[in-house]
C-alpha cells in the first residue's frame, strides 16, 4: 500500500507548488510584522541621524514599557475573544493606591504589592461580571472604566500624590546598569507571560476558549475559570503599569492613563492577535507595541506634527486588521 502510494507520480509538482506558496504565506504570517518593523526602523534611521543611537533606543523602550505591560495583559483577554477597556482607569487607581502606601512609609514592597493587588481586585470584579454574570466584556469593562476612574478621584479628592520616596521613584527613573528599570520590568513581564501562554496547559486553554468555546467546554476545559482569570491577569498588569508610571512621572496623577486602553488594544491588534479570539501571540504584541513606540518617537525626532502621528497610528491599525481579514478569507 505504502509503496503504491509513494509511487503515484502525478500530484508531486502541484504539491511542491502549493507547498512553496504555503511556506511563503507562513513566512509572511510569522515574519511580516517584524519585517515591517525593520523597514520602518531603516526609514527612520535614514531620516534622522539620532534614531539609531543607544540613548534613543533606551528611550523608545522606556516609553513603550507602560503600554507594553498593558498590552501583554490585553493579549490574554483578546485571545479569549474578550476586551478590557478599563486598563487605563485601573492603572490610575492602582498607581494612586501604591503611591499612598509609599508615602505612608510602608516600604517599597508593600507599595508595589498594594498597586498590583488593587489592580488584580478590579480585575476580579471584571472577571466576575464577564464570566459569572455573562455581561458582554465590552459593557462590563466600559462600566469599570468609569467606576475605577471615579474611585481614583474619590481616593485622594482629585489631587495627585507627590513627594514619593526615592526607592519608589527608582522603579520609573532608576537604571540597572545601562538599562532603565521600566524596561527590565517590561521584559520580565513579557517573558513570563509568553512562557505561560506557550508552554503551559493554562496557555493552551486560553487559545481553546477563544478559538471555539463550545468545543473547549465539551473537552472539559473550565471555560468560566479561564475567562475569569484573563481579566485578573489584565488587572494585575494594569496595576503594575500604574506603579511604574507613577514612579516615572514622580507623582501619581488621578487623570493618568486616559485612553491608554486604546493604545494597548492597538498594540495587540497590530501584533496580529485576532479580535475574534483564538489566534495571536505575545511576540506579536511586543512588535505591535514597539511599532507604535517607534512611530511616536520617530515623528517626534523629525518634528512632525502630532496630527500626522494620530493619522499614521490609525492607518496602521486598520491595515493590520485588514491583513488579518484577508488571511482568514484565503484559508
Amino acid at each position: 500500500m505504502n509503496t503504491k502510494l509513494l509511487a503515484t507520480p502525478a500530484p508531486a509538482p502541484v504539491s511542491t507548488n502549493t507547498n512553496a506558496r504555503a511556506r511563503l504565506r507562513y513566512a509572511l504570517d510569522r515574519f511580516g510584522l517584524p519585517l515591517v518593523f525593520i523597514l520602518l526602523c531603516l526609514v527612520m534611521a535614514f531620516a534622522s541621524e539620532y534614531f539609531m543611537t543607544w540613548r534613543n533606543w533606551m528611550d523608545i523602550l522606556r516609553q513603550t514599557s507602560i503600554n507594553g505591560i498593558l498590552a501583554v495583559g490585553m493579549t490574554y483577554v483578546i485571545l479569549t475573544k474578550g476586551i478590557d477597556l478599563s486598563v487605563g482607569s485601573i492603572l490610575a487607581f492602582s498607581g494612586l493606591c501604591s503611591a499612598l502606601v509609599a508615602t505612608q512609609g510602608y516600604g517599597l514592597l508593600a507599595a508595589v504589592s498594594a498597586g498590583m493587588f488593587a489592580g488584580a481586585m478590579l480585575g476580579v470584579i471584571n472577571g466576575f461580571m464577564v464570566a459569572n454574570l455573562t455581561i458582554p466584556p465590552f459593557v462590563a469593562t466600559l462600566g469599570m472604566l468609569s467606576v475605577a476612574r471615579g474611585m481614583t478621584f474619590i481616593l485622594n479628592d482629585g489631587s495627585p500624590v507627590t513627594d514619593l520616596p526615592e526607592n519608589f521613584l527608582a522603579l520609573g527613573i532608576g537604571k540597572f546598569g545601562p538599562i532603565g528599570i521600566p524596561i527590565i520590568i517590561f521584559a520580565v513581564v513579557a517573558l513570563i507571560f509568553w512562557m505561560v501562554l506557550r508552554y503551559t496547559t493554562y496557555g493552551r486553554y486560553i487559545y481553546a476558549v477563544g478559538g471555539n468555546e463550545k468545543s473547549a467546554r465539551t473537552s472539559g476545559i473550565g471555560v468560566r475559570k479561564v475567562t475569569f482569570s484573563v481579566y485578573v491577569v489584565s488587572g494585575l498588569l494594569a496595576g503594575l503599569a500604574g506603579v511604574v508610571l507613577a514612579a516615572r512621572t514622580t507623582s501619581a496623577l488621578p487623570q493618568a492613563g486616559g485612553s491608554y486602553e486604546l493604545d494597548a488594544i492597538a498594540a495587540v491588534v497590530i501584533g496580529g492577535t485576532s479580535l475574534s479570539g483564538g489566534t495571536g501571540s505575545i511576540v506579536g504584541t511586543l512588535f505591535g507595541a514597539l511599532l507604535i513606540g517607534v512611530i511616536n518617537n520617530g515623528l517626534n525626532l523629525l518634528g512632525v506634527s502630532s496630527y500626522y502621528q494620530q493619522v499614521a497610528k490609525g492607518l496602521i491599525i486598520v491595515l493590520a486588521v485588514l491583513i488579518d481579514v484577508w488571511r482568514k478569507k484565503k484559508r
Partner: protein
Amino acid sequence: MKLSTKKVGKSLAALAAISLLSSSIAFAQDKTYKIGAAVYGLKGQYMQNWVREIKEHPAVKDGTVQLTVFDGNYDAMTQNNQIETMVTQHYDAIIFVPIDTKAGVATVTQAQISGVPVIASNTKVASANVPFIGNDDVEGGRLQAQAMVDKLHGKGTVAIIQGPIGQSAQIDRQKGEIEVLLKNPQIKIIEMKTANWSRAEALTLTEDWLNAHPNGGISGIISQNDDMALGALQAIKSRGLSPNDVPVTAIDGMPDAIQAAKKGEVITFLQDAQAQSQGALDMALRTLVGKDYKPQSTIWERYAKDVKWGEGTDKVYILPWVPVTGTNADALYTQVTGTK
C-alpha cells in the same frame, strides 16, 4: 459622590431656608441667594482649588449664598446643559468658567435674556456683555517667554510645549510667547508640539527632543502649563542635565511647580484661584444686592495695587500673575494647597 451628597445636603438646606423665610417674611431683609458655579472640569488641581476657595467666601460661609457647583467634565455641551438647567431652576446668578470662550455664548445670552446674570471667571466668554475676572493668558505667555529670554541672555534655541491645540488658554498663551520671541531675533524656536497639558506626554516629548538635538541643541523649554513643565524637567534630569543647562519656564502655579520653583528648577507664575473665584462671587453679589454691596473677599486688598473694585460694575477685572520666587514660595504653597 462627594459632590452629589453635598448637593443633597444643600437642597435640604435650601428647603429649610425657604420654610424659614416664609415663616419670618417680615424679617426677610437678609435674603439668601441661590448661585450656581459651572466649572469646566474638576479633574485638575486648579479647578479643585478654585472650588475650594469659593466655598471659603464669607457670603457662602454665613449662608447668604447657597452655592451649587456643576462639573462640566471638559465638555462644552455639558456646560451649556448645566446653564440651561440653572436658568430653569431660577438660580439668582451663574458663575461660569467655560472650557471654550465661544462655545457658550448663545446659552449665556439666553440666560441673560431670562434675567439671570452671568459672570465669567478664569476664561472669558466671547461676548461683550459678560463681566470677566481672571488672568490675561496673553500676558502670561509674554511673562514666561520674557523670563526665558532673560535666562538665556537673549540668545539661544527654544522648544515650546503646547497645550491642547485650539483651547483658549493654549491660543492666548502662545500669542504672548511668540510676540516676545519675535522681538528677540537671536532666539530661535526649533520645536513646537502639543503635550495636551499632560505630564507623561511632555516627559516623552522632551526625551525625544533631547535626542534629536543633543549636546546643548536645546537651550531652553517654554511649557504652556506647569504640569508639562514638570514632565520636561523630569526628562532633563534623567538625561543627567541640570535645570541650569536647560531652563524651563511655565505658568499656573500648581503646588508641585511651586516646590520646584523654590528649588530653582523651574520658573513659573501663579494665577490666583482664590482671586478668580471669590472675586467673581463678589461681582455676582454686587449685581444682585445693588450698589450698597461691599466686596467681602480678602483678594481685593491683596491685589489693591493692580485691581480696583471701583463701583463693582467694571466689565473686566484683570488679575496680575505672581512670579514664584524663593522668598514667596512657602507662602504661596500654603495658599494654593489650602493647608493652614
